[in-house]
């Protein structure tokens, strides 16, 4: 393991790390800072990394910046929760409001490849009606994109990542079969499946971005079970090992350990490039277009921190909506004890899923949908659930931890509605770069509380049906971040248009979960990547027409 990745840029001097070879390198095209590149992309996660690949493959010159390190998983990743905190965004942030959010490992990545390096790989399509939730379902706001178009891009991403999933997916319109076969169920997933059947609903093997057969230089999953702390065998199809090697091969440049602090605006109202901090100094890269892809906290933070005399309230913020409508997803759980050994540390944590309540509306006293999945917490995470969520400490905690191999649980991913008061603003304090840190304000609404009550009852009934005793509810967890720069139909009510181009600054784009108008009850990463593929196609089309 080489510790230098956190202190010295690896992508430099005409080469970048080869993620498939310990100590290996691949060639990387480099651009001079005084040269105006076609696209400067801020962030290399599900949005920015995917877009960097697609734009480079279309022949655009691309420099993609990431504040985090450029890892080679095979040599840099330990099987250890504590050590792997190096993958998380741990810069100072303040959380407040009635329900302050937990960030860090929960939802924030800081490495090349973004939080896909430590995501749980759950790769779901949105329910078609969610793209028109206001019109079709009577809540939230509509997306300016038709679901059938998204359906095509979902297929593209699923193929690129070789998603492993079932032959027939039980919910929603027809979709192609998943590229790779589904993974076997572990014991925790079997509990979900048996419970779902006892309650009269479908279940499925979770479509998941870890390989069930070889793909290129990556080997199949070995069921090590530490997916959420970074895959050390490269079975996980993160952006780091999928889109970015393609991006490099197509001529994109990636700059690691490069924190973008401000977007520079020219006198004509167009962005001219980005100021970034690398190797101890502030530098400037000129660019014809700037894409912000920092996820739903860092994206609004950068736009707000880039305020200038022409845009005193921050860039792309004429609507006043930058930073507003922050949506997490509800992540409550029910746990219980069973006689048999579950050992849920084996295999990806969420091998089985029930999306019934994402697609069924009858009988709900709330808007929105939710899914739930089987669980496989690692020791520190589990001990924090038992202490924080159940109030155990001392002897009671140690004794309960000793029974972990018999614990089984189900956890929801539930839709949070967009509320303008849930938002990201700038705090008075500054970080290690001298930049104002973000303040993240969040409150759960009554709609969400009703959804949680329904979901916990349903999940508990499922666990009861499969013999789990001593059941208890973990009630305050959330996950995922979306919605602080929503896309829409007009400049008054949205930040970007359907092409993810800002209404106010024509060469400023946003490409991450920030643009989601609504979030649904499905993990967002597949949709973020599908949107990035669509944005790349739209940029190609606009370029062809001379409309960039």
């Amino acid at each position: 393991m080489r510790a230098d990745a956190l202190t010295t840029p690896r992508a430099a001097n005409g080469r970048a790390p080869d993620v498939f070879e310990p100590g290996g390198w691949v060639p990387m095209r480099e651009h001079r800072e005084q040269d105006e590149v076609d696209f400067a992309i801020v962030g290399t996660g599900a949005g920015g990394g995917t877009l960097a690949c697609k734009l480079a493959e279309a022949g655009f010159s691309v420099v993609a910046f990431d504040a985090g390190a450029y890892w080679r998983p095979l040599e840099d990743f330990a099987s250890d929760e504590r050590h792997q905190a190096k993958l998380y965004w741990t810069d100072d942030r303040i959380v407040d409001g009635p329900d302050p959010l937990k960030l860090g490992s929960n939802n924030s990545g800081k490495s090349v490849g973004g939080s896909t390096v430590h995501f749980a790989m759950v790769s779901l399509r949105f329910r078609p009606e969610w793209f028109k939730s206001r019109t079709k379902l009577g809540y939230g706001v509509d997306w300016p994109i038709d679901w059938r178009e998204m359906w095509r891009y979902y297929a593209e991403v699923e193929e690129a990542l070789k998603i492993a999933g079932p032959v027939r997916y039980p919910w929603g319109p027809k979709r192609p079969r998943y590229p790779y076969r589904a993974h076997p169920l572990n014991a925790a997933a079997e509990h979900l499946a048996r419970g779902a059947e006892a309650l009269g609903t479908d279940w499925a093997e979770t479509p998941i971005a870890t390989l069930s057969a070889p793909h290129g230089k990556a080997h199949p999953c070995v069921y090590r079970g530490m997916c959420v702390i970074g895959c050390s065998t490269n079975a996980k199809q993160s952006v780091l090992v999928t889109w970015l090697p393609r991006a490099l091969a197509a001529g994109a440049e990636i700059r690691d350990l490069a924190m973008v602090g401000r977007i520079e605006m020219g006198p004509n109202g167009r962005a001219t490039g980005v100021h970034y901090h690398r190797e101890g100094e502030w530098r400037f890269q000129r660019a014809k277009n700037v894409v912000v892809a920092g996820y739903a906290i860092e994206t609004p933070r950068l736009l707000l921190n880039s305020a200038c005399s022409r845009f005193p309230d921050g860039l792309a913020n004429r609507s006043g909506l930058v930073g507003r409508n922050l949506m997490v997803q509800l992540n409550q759980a029910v746990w219980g004890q069973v006689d048999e050994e579950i050992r849920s540390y084996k295999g990806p944590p969420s091998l089985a899923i029930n999306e019934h309540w994402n697609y069924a509306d009858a009988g709900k006293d709330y808007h929105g949908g939710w899914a739930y999945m089987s669980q496989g917490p690692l020791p520190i995470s589990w001990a924090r659930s038992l202490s924080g969520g159940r109030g155990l400490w001392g002897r009671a905690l140690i004794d309960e931890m000793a029974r972990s191999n018999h614990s089984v649980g189900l956890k929801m991913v539930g839709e949070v509605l967009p509320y303008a008061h849930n938002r990201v603003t700038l705090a008075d304090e500054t970080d290690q770069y001298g930049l104002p840190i973000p303040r993240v304000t969040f409150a759960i609404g009554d709609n969400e509380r009703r959804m949680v009550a329904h979901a916990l009852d349903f999940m508990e009934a499922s666990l009861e049906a499969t013999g789990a005793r001593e059941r208890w509810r973990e009630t305050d967890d959330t996950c995922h971040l979306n919605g602080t720069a929503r896309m829409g139909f007009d400049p008054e009510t949205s930040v970007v248009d359907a092409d993810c181009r800002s209404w106010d600054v024509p060469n400023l784009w946003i490409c991450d979960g920030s643009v989601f108008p609504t979030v649904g009850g499905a993990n967002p990463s597949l949709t973020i990547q599908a949107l990035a593929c669509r944005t790349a196609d739209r940029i190609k089309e606009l370029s062809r027409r001379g409309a960039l």
Partner: protein
Amino acid sequence: MADRFPDYDVLTQRDTPSWNAATREVIDARLRLGEATGLLTAVQIATLRALAERIVPQPEQRAPVNTVALLLASLTDATAGEGYRPAGLPPAREAWARGLDAIEAEARLVHGRGFAALPPEAADTLLAAIENGTVRACEWQQLPPRLFWSWRLLPDLVAAYFAHPSAWSAMGFGGPASPRGYVRLAADRRDPWEAAERDDGRLLPAPFRNRHAR
């Protein structure tokens, strides 16, 4: 509670295909980790030591966990903290310093002696008062007790303790698993390198079945 995984020690897998070089390096360093100096005063350290003993008490038969050293390291190591904090709580290191002072002040106010000198029941009652926000020492005016309890005290101590292989062994956790991973995923199935759980009804006792757990 009797040890459910007698004779199981996850460290016996160190030199097997379940541990890659990065893992060996990280865990070797963790086992050797000493207590960082200069972060907290001697009194604060004594309070922290007693606090760790109440929150994450070490099973007698298991190798000792250097909980205090691990907690102190998380206050110095930039990659070990979590960054985010609720409004009203200072950054982690400052919060811990204030929190330990407040616990000590609370013990002296209520019991007339330091926290480290309290009998277990009195210490636990005091901790429950922090958990419930019913503490009285004026030091808590600088540190909301329930926020400190739920965002720092519990999660930080628990994370420190369960980062140690001794804690993994006691819970029968398979431990590091790269590149070998696991083969048998179904209920009641165990790979040879996983811990066998004590079951007095079985013909072969767990220590016998655990002799191959490596």
